[in-house]
């Protein structure tokens, strides 16, 4: 069965500092990987996705993630954090299920706190 581990429940960074959020997955084949962001009182918004090809994926809002098969990781990075980036971040893995649908399995999330 597929699973996602986000080892950090909370991450605190200063505005302008760099950010890396960790994600490890367990899946028997080449995974489809996603990062979503959830602001307070909001639904989830897709930041980026990896299906195949270049292992460094660029997303919205200046985020990027790198797929490392040998480490079963898909860490999210941003070179300079803005106060508006404070939110909950979810990593997800999702294979193509039967019938063509995919059902992402989400990690428990990492809460990002940004200090001024």
């Amino acid at each position: 069965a597929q699973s996602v581990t986000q080892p950090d429940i909370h991450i605190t960074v200063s505005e302008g500092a760099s950010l890396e959020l960790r994600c490890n997955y367990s899946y028997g084949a080449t995974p489809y990987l996603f990062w979503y962001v959830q602001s307070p009182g909001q639904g989830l918004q897709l930041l980026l996705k990896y299906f195949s090809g270049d292992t460094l994926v660029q997303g919205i809002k200046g985020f990027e993630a790198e797929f490392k098969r040998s480490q079963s990781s898909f860490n999210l990075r941003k070179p300079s954090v803005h106060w508006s980036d404070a939110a909950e971040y979810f990593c997800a893995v999702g294979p193509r299920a039967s019938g063509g649908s995919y059902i992402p399995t989400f990690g428990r999330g990492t809460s990002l706190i940004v200090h001024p």
Partner: protein
Amino acid sequence: DAGVTQSPTHLIKTRGQQVTLRCSPKSGHDTVSWYQQALGQGPQFIFQYYEEEERQRGNFPDRFSGHQFPNYSSELNVNALLLGDSALYLCASSLGQGDFGSPLHFGNGTRLTVT
């Protein structure tokens, strides 16, 4: 272009009661998935509807049921509510059962509190 809309935004129910949550998908989308997000947890998949049929189901009891209408909107019904059903319920829409070219678009959710 309207995104995914859910109603109501908040709901308070008593144990044993029944509840219905509603979702209108993003314009142009035909597939609706429902997720339960408990406090401090990631979303858990409940089920997915496409062409008015339940296509995939997560590990949820039969108390959780749904429906999709010809206009692609959907309802989530929960019977015999338990305290543990208190959560944020998220609806996500996509095109063609979540083809990878069409990622999930989430609504803002319905916060259900069971007392």
